[in-house]
């Protein structure tokens, strides 16, 4: 057995074993929901150990350099071939790392379906590793679509309505996967082989279609607009570990991995300027739209979900620049986003574990009780906003630098879109910072709200409802690790992540030199604008407060500087308010549009073709009946009528035969 097979099949096999053992009592369990603590503990330990082994294997593969494995499988060039090189093996390493953290994080949680949960987590790990390592397009799409099925199953383990969101995710991802499949088949038709190698096809008319279809697949997996709409829904319905595991880290890695390979290995974009612009505009639109939505969210989970989407926008923007620094920045950003978004999701999970809610309105003052979670959230929030010296700063800097390199030397109209992208990216980070100040303020700082108070402050008799301490170590430890990585990847950006992970992954080499330039200025401007927005928001809210008159409930004054009210000034402003209202009502949900039009078209087809044929059939049926009734009435048994018919027949015979005789 080759070492490359283990990170794929070990978790899948262990996952299936857990599933089989767990589903033995399927029928009983669904009626009588009981949790068996000992069994749950065994299962979670087993999964944790498996994930750890895969992590070690991932590290071994990563340090081994390039590895190849290939056995012929089925005909038409579909071989089971795997290849580990810098890019794929660092993705495997991080995927296993996230799986390990999620297993650790989930250990303390009580769940009804522990067996299915852990088995799906493990199977998904194997499947994702398979997609990274595969060196054949069919093997790749096989694992890739399996990951979509696992996503569906993992979201379904949530609350009662999670199946609706799961189906929505499956529809969107399934659609994009079929697009990707068609793109791969088109690529096969051009190149004649399924191996994933360095093709560098020029984008002509024919391969343009393949490029677009494959990019759709990659963007939907990464959660970019307009394929993002299931993520905010899932943040409500799916469990938070699943959110941190799939949309935040593993799916992001997968999608950007594919996008980077499309742009660097399979196609050459350098000549087609408009295509890179198109890609960049998708990225920029994703950034700004998602951030604006995040700004007004009142639920921590949903807010992070929108931040997660906007992260995908930065990566696409970086890769769309199509120069080496921009792509490197995109990959670095992919790594960084996976770190901070999963950290934020897990922190939100800890808050939920402690207080039972992630609603920003109901939280406050948690920093006393949960100092570690607070610090982790704080670091992750600063990273995502691009504050130096965390990883967000460096990855954003590289993306900006990539964009600036695209600027033409002389002033020309071509520079306009790029300047626009720069401004959007800058505003994106400003608004990100502003949103996270709101989160930090309303969850951890300020006065403790009623909900929080009952957990962290003693009641009248001096007893605590629960201990006013940090959550169990299995919960805070993963978040702290992730936050530490955010710091390390920022402070030692060049020495660790770029040197070991990002640069070896790219075909062209590039030596980064730290230079304070326009990019740095833009980032600093972003931070300053973010702080200004924050202050503008708070000042206005404070101003709105009325003067205290005796007799009023003092409660309203304790509560009046709620974080969620910070940006009401923005969301109430004239052009925004109507857009926000429509966005919240899911008017801009492209999924609804697509689904609605699919329904309408299906109806049209059904009525215009299927029912029409049905009516024709019924019509012929009636016609036959009428004709046969008529004919049968002709044969009513009357002698005269038969006589007439005979005469008529004779006449015809005469007419036909007569002239010949004569």
């Amino acid at each position, binding site marked *: 057995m080759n070492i490359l097979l283990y990170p794929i099949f070990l978790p899948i096999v262990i996952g299936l074993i857990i599933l089989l053992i767990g589903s033995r009592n399927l029928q009983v369990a669904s009626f009588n929901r009981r949790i068996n603590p000992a069994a749950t503990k065994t299962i979670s330990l087993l999964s944790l150990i498996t994930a750890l082994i895969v992590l070690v294997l991932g590290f071994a593969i990563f340090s081994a350099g390039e590895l190849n494995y290939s056995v012929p499988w*089925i*005909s038409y060039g579909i071989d089971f071939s795997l290849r580990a090189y810098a890019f794929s093996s660092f993705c495997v390493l991080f995927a296993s790392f996230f799986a390990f953290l999620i297993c650790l994080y989930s250990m303390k949680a009580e769940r009804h379906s522990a067996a299915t949960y852990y088995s799906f987590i493990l199977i998904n790990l194997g499947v994702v590793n398979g997609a990274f390592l595969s060196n054949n397009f069919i093997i790749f*799409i*096989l694992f890739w679509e399996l990951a979509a099925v696992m996503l569906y199953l993992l979201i379904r383990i949530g609350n009662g309505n999670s199946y609706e969101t799961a*189906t929505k995710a499956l529809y969107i991802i399934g659609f994009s996967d079929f697009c990707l499949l068609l793109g791969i088949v088109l690529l096969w038709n051009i190149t004649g082989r399924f191996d994933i190698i360095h093709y560098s096809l020029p984008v002509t008319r024919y391969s343009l279609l393949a490029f677009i279809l494959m990019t759709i697949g990659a963007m939907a997996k990464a959660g970019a607009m307009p394929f993002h709409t299931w993520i905010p829904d899932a943040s409500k319905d799916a469990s938070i570990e699943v959110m941190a595991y799939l949309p935040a880290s593993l799916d992001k890695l997968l999608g950007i991995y594919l996008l980077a390979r499309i742009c660097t290995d399979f196609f050459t974009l350098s000549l087609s300027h408009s295509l890179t612009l198109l890609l960049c505009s998708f990225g920029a639109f994703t950034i700004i739209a998602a951030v604006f939505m995040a700004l007004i969210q009142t639920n921590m989970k949903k807010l992070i979900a929108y931040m997660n989407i906007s992260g995908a926008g930065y990566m696409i923007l970086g890769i769309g620049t199509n120069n080496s620094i921009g792509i490197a920045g995109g990959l670095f950003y992919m790594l960084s986003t996976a770190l901070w978004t999963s950290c934020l999701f897990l922190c939100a999970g800890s808050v939920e574990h402690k207080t039972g809610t992630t609603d920003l309105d109901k939280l406050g003052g948690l920093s006393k009780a949960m100092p570690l979670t607070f610090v982790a959230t704080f670091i992750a929030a600063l990273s995502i906003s691009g504050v130096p010296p965390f990883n967000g700063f460096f990855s954003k800097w590289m993306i900006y630098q990539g964009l600036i390199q695209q600027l033409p030397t002389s002033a020309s109209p071509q520079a306009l879109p790029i300047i626009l992208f720069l401004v959007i990216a800058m505003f994106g980070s400003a608004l990100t910072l502003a949103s996270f100040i709101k989160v930090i303020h309303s969850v951890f700082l300020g006065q403790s709200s009623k909900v929080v108070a009952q957990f962290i402050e003693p009641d009248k008799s001096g007893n605590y409802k629960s201990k006013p301490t940090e959550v169990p170590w299995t919960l805070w430890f993963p978040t702290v690790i992730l936050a530490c990585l955010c710091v390390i990847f920022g402070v030692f950006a060049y020495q660790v992540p770029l040197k070991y992970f990002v640069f070896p992954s790219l075909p062209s080499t590039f030596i980064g030199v730290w230079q304070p330039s326009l990019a740095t200025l833009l980032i600093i401007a972003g931070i300053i604008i973010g702080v200004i927005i924050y202050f503008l928001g708070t000042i206005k809210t404070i101003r709105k407060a009325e003067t205290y008159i005796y007799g009023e409930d003092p409660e309203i004054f304790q509560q009046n500087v709620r974080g969620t009210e910070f940006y009401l000034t923005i969301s109430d402003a004239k052009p925004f308010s109507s857009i926000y209202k429509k966005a919240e009502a899911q008017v801009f949900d492209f999924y609804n549009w697509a689904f609605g039009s699919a329904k309408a078209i299906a109806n049209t087809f*059904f009525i215009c073709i*299927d029912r029409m044929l049905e009516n024709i059939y019924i019509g012929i049926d009636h016609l036959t009946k009428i004709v046969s009734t008529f004919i049968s009435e002709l044969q009513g048994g009357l002698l005269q009528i038969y006589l007439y018919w005979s005469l008529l027949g004779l006449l015809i015979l005469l007419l036909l035969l007569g002239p010949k005789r004569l």
Partner: protein
Amino acid sequence: MKTFVLLSIGIPIIGSFANLLIKRRQNIISTVLIFAGFVTSCLLISPILTGTTGYFHRYFIEFFSTAFIADGLSVFMAVTASFIGGLIAIYSAGYMKDYEHLKEYYFYITLFVGSMLGLIFSANLLLMFIFWEITALCSWRLIGFYRDEKGLLAADRAFILTFLGSGLMLAGFAIVYSQYNTLNILSLSGKEIPTFAMILILCGMLAKSAQLPFHLWLPDAGVAPSPVTAFLHAAVLVKIGVYAFARLFIFTFPMTETFQDIVMILSVATILVAGASAFVENDIKRILAYSTISQIGYIFLGFATDVAVGITGAIFFILVHGLGKAGLFLSAGIVEHNTHEKDIRKLGGLSKTMPITSVAFVLCALSIIGFPPFGGFFSKLYVIMSVVQKGKILLASLAVLGAVLTLLYLFRLYNAVFLGTARGTDAERNTELTRNNYMEKTKGMVVIVLVLGLLSLLTGLFPQVFLSFIELIK
């Protein structure tokens, strides 16, 4: 080989008549007979693997001979049809036990499998036509099994529409005979026939496989008992058309370019129209029937390209679709049998009370949609590859769209039936009677459904086993 071929046809046909004379245990005898057909067909596999093809004939009159051929294609079809047919026969034991006229039921399904095997092995166009019409008679009686007004009408419609097709097909055969003075497939091999004759023959196949514009009878046939519909959709009836297409147009007559284009466009239209109809309908069995129509379109599409990869994909899809669709119909049968409800708007939340059925349904659905690691993935992939190879990008895109449509309507069906909350008030739901009704009662039925689901998975996990056999066929 000759004995095995004759046995596999003869045992079910003669056995079905013998079964009429026996008073008791027809279900077991009928199952044994069908599996005897399966076993004897399986015994033909090993000679095929060594590369021998069995052929023998006996002349009666000039144009009619009992000629039989046992090559890779016919053995593959025979094994598939008799295996799925046998599984459905086991399932029927649980489903049908409360109904009258059981003797008739088992007689017809055994005769059906027998004549299906006869059709598959026959190497004479007229012989093929005779078996073809026997299957039409069987399906006519089976669809009208309940003897109610609606059922009889549906049965008549099925018979009339398929007969319309087969009448046209007979005319096509007549043209072939007038040109070459033989109806033997082997002597006709490689002979060119006019496109017009091809289209006439195609009409028969389209009608039998319920393709546009002859598809109307199949959704209506859903009034029959569930095992019968599963039987028609998965094992026997609709597969006859595709088999005949492969036998005549891939292995015998070379297709003309125009004819290929017509079939490809027609099958893509079928995929989309039937898929759209399945998305609109609200009756479980009508949705599944439209789904069959739509999926059979992929098989025709793969064959019509006449490219190696497409033929492989299409043949593989016959097996995969048989397993998956049988599983879906039998799951629907369990739901219908226990809840007496076919409208998906009135169902819901059954995954709690029928967990195994629900799992089997998902497995089969994923296979039909074309998700890995199920067999449907490889077969659809191959079909799409072949269409792209032909250079028909637009048709390939539409075929992919059809797969997305499959995803939409099958999960719509699954969500409506198995997920969500059960309809009705809480009090209604909690009565002993309803709760009992919503349980999976008969073990045998549930096991068969699960077996079909797992086999769908198996075809995808080890596709090389099946695909390498299919490669031998060509």
